[in-house]
């Protein structure tokens, strides 16, 4: 992390009230994201990676209870008034989603939708905003942007729609761009193009980017730093090289071992399934699936991140130097 910290989460929590009781989807997440870096937030389904950022943006239903702190250059978002949230959302923090088609209005031309986005946050005449919209389409690599601006979403392919979403997201020069599984619905050759666009935005505009994904390959390609999530908490955090080469937390190591490798060796799955967040186990949430778990892992508060070797890890046994640190996988 070299640049100035733009986005900061502290003890961030999200719970949903259900008939059976509160579901603790996010249970105390800390994260700093600096200008000009891409932070990969990885985790499996139900790890809380999406809910964290939807909660931060005020995009969750009323049944969600949000606690802790989330600040964008000092502006607190938790508990912020709707008016403030509207000023932040799309202006200072923008977000793109997995499915670009459901995020675009099918009855309006692409250009007008971007113009609307610009004029919601800046006082700019319509024709100037349209020029800016066309410029943005060009930035995200859409050929013949002036013609394309006059077309409707259904005339765009999946990859092109995601480019439009990125154009809308960067329309107001946001400080933070949150990309929630932006390439999951796309084919690999198109995914490569979209990742390229995100990297260019990071490089040229200095935007801080949070990339939420379950794909470790995507993270390896574009992220500078990585935060691994498990059961609503951070399991491990480090630079992309350290996470892949020197992972410490047994969950991170388990994820790496379960990926097919070139050598064709037998895969090593993680036994069991993630815990039910209605009633998460005491202590470390990964303990029931962890081959290294001992009694102290199963009691008390969930472990917090602490420096072990090159990474920060939330494993008490690693923190007590009881795990052999495997390096250079």
């Amino acid at each position, binding site marked *: 992390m070299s640049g100035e910290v733009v986005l900061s989460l502290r003890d961030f929590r999200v719970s949903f009230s259900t008939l059976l009781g509160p579901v603790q989807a996010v249970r105390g997440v800390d994260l700093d994201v600096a200008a000009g870096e891409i932070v990969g937030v990885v985790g*499996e*389904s139900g790890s809380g990676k999406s809910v964290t950022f939807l909660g931060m943006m005020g995009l969750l239903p009323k049944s969600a209870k949000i606690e802790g702190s989330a600040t964008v250059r000092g502006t607190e978002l938790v508990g912020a008034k709707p008016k403030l949230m509207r000023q932040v959302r799309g202006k200072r923090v923008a977000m793109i989603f997995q499915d670009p088609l459901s995020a675009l209005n099918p009855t309006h031309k692409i250009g007008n939708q971007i113009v609307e986005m610009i004029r919601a946050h800046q006082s700019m005449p319509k024709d100037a905003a349209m020029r800016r919209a066309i410029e943005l389409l060009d930035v995200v690599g859409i050929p013949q942007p002036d013609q394309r601006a006059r077309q409707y979403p259904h005339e765009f*392919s*999946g*990859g*092109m729609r995601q480019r439009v979403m990125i154009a809308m997201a960067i329309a107001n020069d946001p400080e933070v761009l949150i990309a929630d599984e932006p390439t999951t619905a796309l*084919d*690999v*050759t*198109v*995914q*490569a*193009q979209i*990742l*390229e666009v995100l*990297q*260019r935005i990071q*490089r040229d505009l200095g935007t801080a980017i949070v990339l939420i994904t*379950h*794909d*470790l*390959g*995507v*993270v*390896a*390609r*574009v*992220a*500078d730093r990585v935060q691994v999530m498990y059961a609503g908490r951070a399991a491990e955090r480090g*630079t*992309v*090289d350290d996470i*892949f*080469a020197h992972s410490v937390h047994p969950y991170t190591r*388990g*994820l*790496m*071992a*379960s*990926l*097919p490798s*070139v050598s*064709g060796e*037998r*895969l*090593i*799955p*993680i*036994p069991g*399934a993630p815990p039910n967040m209605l009633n998460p186990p005491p202590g470390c949430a990964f303990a029931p699936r962890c081959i290294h778990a001992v009694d102290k892992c199963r009691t008390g508060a969930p472990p917090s991140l602490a420096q072990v070797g090159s990474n920060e890890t939330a494993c008490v046994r690693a923190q007590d130097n009881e795990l052999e640190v495997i390096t250079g996988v």
Partner: protein
Amino acid sequence: MSDAPSTSTTRSAIAAENPILQVKGLVKHFAVRSSKGLRVVQRTVQAVSDVSFEVARGRTLGVVGESGSGKTTVGRCILRLIEPTAGSVVFDGKELVGMPVKQLRGLRRDMQIVFQDPYASLDPRRTVQDAITEPFEIQKIRVDARAKAAELLELVGLAPDHARRFPHEFSGGQRQRIGIARALALNPKMIVLDEPVSALDVSIQAGVINLLQDLQSELGLSYLFIAHDLSVVRHISDLVAVMYLGKIMEIGPAEQLYTAPLHPYTQSLLSAIPEPDPVTERTRERILLQGDVPSPINPPSGCRFRTRCPIAKDICAEEEPALVDRGLGHPVACHFADVFPVKVLAPRPSSTAL
């Protein structure tokens, strides 16, 4: 059990002796209606165009491709879950195309399918025992359902007492195991696996892949493994076919195809897939394809890949390259596969140096 495939790099590596499945010239067209102004016009989606391959006994053929490549349609045509427009599918010596449905039903004992979505492929109102013993009902085979269910569940790594539960009580990985148990019920010779692990998280996916490999070596099963995840396909397959817009672009032994891909599309596909290794990602060459896959309603003339191909020449638009062995180890459908060796493009400058 099965003939070991020849390890030599000749044609024999592709054509197996006494294969369990031979597909020749498979074609599937779907009629679609689209509106042109006020007129409704009938058009044809050429989902699969002249696809031929063989699956060796006890082996795995992986089929990879992007969406719209026709890989799922191929799998379904083989089982005649959809009727092929043309071509021949010979399974265990018997021609399936044109076979009366009654006879086909008997043959389906030997040929099963596992679907991608473990949530959609199980009836939520039936117990696991009902689901995995339904094949016996359909085939009118009398079995002790309870004992059979217990045996099948054990085979796929679930507990026998899971038989009385309902699908919603299981995780995605467990449901996929139930789907596999159902496919195994009739003791098939071959299973079509249509994206069987795509919906699963990686830590769960590994267990299902291991299970499929164990079952193959225990039971001598042959697999047609359809997936878009190239690393999974490489891991599980002996042979791999790469599809693009309804055609096979390249087919060869997995190791050869991955280490020395011949077709520019295979090369681009391999280079587009992010590998979970940041060092490799920063240093390797990458071919960034422009644009999207064209519509199968109106595929490009000549070579279907030419509109996105970095080395396309005039001839590519005029003449369709045949899928033949050009003396390069395995069949490839590219005019220039022998002219342009691997790594046709200059390395992309690394933009992510830390």
